């Protein structure tokens, strides 16, 4: 890790261009598309190629195989610049690659939309923002891109702005993430003031300084900062209790869900925690436990909710949440055990990006050919009709549940085993292991529930009967991604070495425990949904109460939306407005009115009768005489 002084250095230029190119494409595509109707057809290709360039550039950075940072004055003592190390390079390659594939898919998927130029402009802006986020060298700049991708997600969720659900979902996503963001700002504030005395000069919020000096900052301050930053991460990565926005965000185009709400943006929170890992590492222990248990609990909770959804995209959304929980808990494990386990978490992040992009694209393909029917109960028997898509879906499902030898096996089970491994020295982690284990089981259950209902059985709707595979421009990314998900496992060792290795060994029965659970889960899913031996409805009816709670998403949405937002805040605002109108302003007007009233009294003194005036004079005389008497001078 060394600092590059001059800007005109190939590495720095490449790093800057990686995120600058897609950002610059945004106005270009927008204006061209606005000016010329027929350019819009090519907007997708332009965006895709631009992102491909940044993919090549990030590969170039990888090939340089050295980590450096460049920073330059921005405002006050904050700097801007790029921070290139294996972590950011890996993220950059993942983001640009996945985004490239999804853009390619979107060329077909959004092909008929009149405003596709807007879509592609915004997605390429998003990609640029995401790449800037992973490459930025300073937390303020990081936060800038952090909010930029949030904005893009807001705009893209509301891409079909005329749909009321889309508009309100966009609003919800923005405000919920905003809650996290302000916590992040406070976290940065704490970091700023805790690092300022430590570093004599320079930028307290530059990532280099944070990594370098975190170990000599008071622990409790670091813990506070970490907790606040975690709040931001929870907002972006939809961790409990701020997870409520992702399922609604599925209102946007499926490609958007694939790109932003599955593969890239939602992992920004994980990346944030991994980026300033030392802050947690040297913090007071409770911060570590917080990270771990937020992650583990989310992994479990989202799994349960995924079980009862019928909207295919929402199922995937909940699985995304739970997988993010796995990543976060992987980091948390390392923190609690004060080990360097970023590699495991990030590896699962990347695997998850592939497989979830794959699953969403397959879902997109299904929606594409089923004319936007999203309820899985209206599907069925699609395997015969769209074989390639559903096969890819199967691959994705297997990878998600971590079925060997798919990549998921190497990433997710690693985390579970890691939790067990640490829980041996540190019993506090034991419950995390339980939660993660159950989470794995639940994952299997809802994934294969979805798969069986969609793939097998009879078509339950007219659209499902004559569905067929989408065109190749959409199939190609699916195929590529499924290949990745299959074979990416072999890169595990190399990846661990690249990011920073952490090895451990466990007895075999622990190693394969998750796998056994997975088999069991698949079997149960088969019993219920594949060969309908048991009826899920009956089961749901039997476990009525629990079912209702889970179905209602644990009433969290109800609490946030209906109680806090619509009742508390809105009624409070009415009260404040009335107060403003009648008390504060009423007071001001009251002063004026009272003066007028006073005047209407005093003017009565002016009777117009001259003798009254004379009387006033005499009264004045007498009063002054009395006054003189009182003062004792007469």
């Amino acid at each position, binding site marked *: 890790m060394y600092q590059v002084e001059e800007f005109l250095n190939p590495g720095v230029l490449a790093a800057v261009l990686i995120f600058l190119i897609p950002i610059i494409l945004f106005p270009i595509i927008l204006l061209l598309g606005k000016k010329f109707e027929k350019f819009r057809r090519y907007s997708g290709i332009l965006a895709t190629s631009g992102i491909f360039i940044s993919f090549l550039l990030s590969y170039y950075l990888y090939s340089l195989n050295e980590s450096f940072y460049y920073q330059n004055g*921005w405002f006050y003592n904050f700097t801007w610049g790029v921070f290139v190390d294996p972590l950011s390079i890996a993220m950059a390659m993942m983001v640009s690659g996945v985004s490239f594939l999804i853009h390619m898919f979107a060329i077909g998927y959004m092909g008929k939309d009149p405003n596709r130029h807007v879509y592609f402009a915004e997605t390429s802006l998003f990609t640029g923002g995401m790449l800037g986020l992973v490459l930025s060298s300073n937390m303020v700049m990081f936060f800038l891109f952090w*909010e930029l991708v949030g904005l893009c997600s807001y705009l893209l969720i509301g891409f079909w702005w005329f749909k009321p659900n889309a508009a309100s979902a966009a609003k919800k996503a923005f405000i919920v993430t905003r809650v996290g963001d302000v916590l992040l700002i406070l976290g940065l504030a704490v970091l700023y003031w805790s690092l300022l005395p430590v570093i004599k000069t320079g930028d307290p919020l530059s990532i280099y300084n944070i990594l370098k000096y975190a170990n000599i900052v008071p622990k409790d301050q670091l813990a506070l900062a970490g907790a606040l930053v975690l709040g931001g991460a929870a907002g972006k990565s939809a961790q409990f209790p701020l997870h409520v926005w992702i399922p609604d965000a599925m209102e946007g185009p499926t490609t958007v869900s694939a790109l932003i709400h599955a593969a890239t943006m939602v992992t920004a929170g994980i990346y944030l925690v991994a980026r300033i890992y030392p802050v947690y590492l040297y913090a007071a222990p409770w911060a570590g436990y917080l990270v771990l248990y937020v992650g583990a609990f989310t992994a479990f909770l989202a799994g349960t909710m995924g079980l009862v959804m019928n909207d295919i995209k929402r199922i995937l959304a909940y699985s995304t949440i739970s997988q993010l929980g796995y990543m976060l808990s992987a980091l948390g494990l390392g923190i609690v055990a004060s080990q360097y386990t970023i590699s495991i978490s990030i590896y699962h992040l990347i695997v998850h990006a592939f497989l979830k992009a794959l699953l969403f694209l397959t879902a997109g393909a299904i929606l594409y050919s089923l004319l936007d029917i999203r309820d899985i109960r209206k599907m069925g028997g699609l395997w015969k009709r769209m074989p390639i898509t559903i096969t890819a879906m199967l691959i994705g499902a297997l990878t998600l549940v971590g079925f060997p030898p798919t990549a998921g096996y190497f990433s997710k089970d690693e985390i579970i085993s890691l939790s067990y491994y640490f829980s041996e020295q540190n019993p506090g982690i034991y419950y995390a292991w339980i939660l993660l284990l159950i989470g794995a089981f639940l994952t299997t259950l809802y994934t294969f529930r979805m798969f069986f209902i969609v793939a097998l059985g009879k078509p339950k709707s007219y659209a499902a009967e004559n569905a067929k595979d989408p065109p190749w421009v959409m199939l190609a990314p699916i195929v590529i991604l499924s290949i990745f998900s299959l074979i990416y496992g072999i890169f595990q060792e190399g990846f661990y070495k690249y990011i920073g290795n952490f090895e451990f060994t466990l007895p075999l029965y622990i190693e394969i425990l998750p796998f056994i659970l997975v088999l069991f889960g698949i079997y149960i899913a088969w019993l219920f949904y594949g060969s309908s031996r048991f009826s899920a409805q009956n089961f749901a009816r039997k476990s009525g109460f629990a079912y209702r709670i889970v179905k209602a998403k644990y009433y969290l949405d109800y609490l946030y939306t209906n109680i806090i937002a619509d009742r508390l805040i809105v009624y409070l*605002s009415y009260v404040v407005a009335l107060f403003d109108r009648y008390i504060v302003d009423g007071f001001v007007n009251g002063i004026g009115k009272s003066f007028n009233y006073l005047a209407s009294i005093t003017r009565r003194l002016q009777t117009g009768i001259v003798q009254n005036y004379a009387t006033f004079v005499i009264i004045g005389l007498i009063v002054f005489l009395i006054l003189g008497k009182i003062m004792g001078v007469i």
Partner: protein
Amino acid sequence: MDYLLLLLVLPILFSIFTLVSGRYSKILSLVFSSIMLLTVLLFYEFINTNFTTDKFFGIGFDVGLNYLSYPLILLVTIVVFAAIFYQDPKIESSYFSYIFFLQFSLFGVFMSQNLFLFYIFWELVLIPSYFMIGRWGGPRKDYTALKFLIYTHVGSVIMLVSIFVLAFNYYSLNGTFNFDYNQIFSAMPSGALYYLVLTGFFLAFFIKLPTFPLHTWAPDVYVESPTTSSMIFSGLLSKMGAYGIFAIFINFKDSSVGWLILSLGIISLIYASFSALAQKDLKRMVAYASIGHMGFISIAAGVYLISSSELALVGGMFMMFAHGLIIPILFGTVGSIERSTGTRAIRDLGGLTKMMPNLAFLMTGGFLASLGLPGLAGFIAEFSVVVGSWQAITYVSFLIVFGLVLSASYHIWALQRTIFGPYNNYLGKIGDMIPREFWPVLILFLLVLLFGIYPYPIYHMFQAYMGGV
């Protein structure tokens, strides 16, 4: 430096020319305002130069430019240029002469170097504002104009008394009268008189700002005025208060005062957000948004008084610049909505993106800037204030960020109701922003974007000012 007088003479000349120029005044005033823009840009050379005459009773015509006043003068010129470009159809020819007169008095406020001159220009601002509200206002213009006048005037006259007290205290100490900003505060009286002086300046500045209990003139004024006036008033009148706070009020080195104005700032941030959330009228909502932003300025000043955190103070100064650019965008877009649809009621709007894509773009941009999205000028300020204030007030900052969330929520809510969602077909077929509305707002937005990404040019001036202080 006698050139400085040019800055004061030109607007007066322009206002006279526009007054006599009859029906050409619209185009002429546009030319004049662009000339002013160029002149002010050229005057970057003359920062930290002063012009003084010989004094009588310590009163002389002392004007000067420093790193705090120059950005504000630049802001005034930019906003006036945009507003004149906007040219609300309601307004007549003589309106522009009032605008230039207002520009003159604002320049005076920002450039004057002694309190007496400051007070004179401060009061002079009332006259053009009164006429601009009253002659071209809405249905309740009489009430609004008189309310604005009395409300702000009461604050000012008490400031006058405090200026006297300071002056005489200085006189009794040094045997000479002296109204200079930097020296007169060395003679701060004690006891009851101290609180008198404090109250005077407090009322004057925090009414103009406006801050929570003293804000009720602002929504009326912003809403009753035609769009051009709203842009100017919301963008510039509040800056007088802000300038007063940063140039004069922070001379009260008193942390209890700091806590007072800090709490007032936080209250008005949250309070304004709540009131904005309840508004049915889009323009009124924007007015409350403006009040909410001004909360940050008192927060910054308060934090500075508590812990002399330079970051927060500079952030507040930058907020005053950023807000001056952002709020006119909001009023401009709202004005063109009103012109095009004939209504400002949020309930009647919806899905305007269909008919007015340009407006949708600019309005989204303006609203996001106003809620402090990074990459736009507002963020730099809010971030500096929040980060800068943590050390002084630690957990109280949660209230500030709560206010941020609230402001985000009502902005987004308004966006969703007006330009997103299904199109309200009762509006019928309506046109997009016309060029005279589109370009000025776009220019302002591009400036906001520029200073959001590259704040250095303005930011370093405020820093230099703090270095000078």
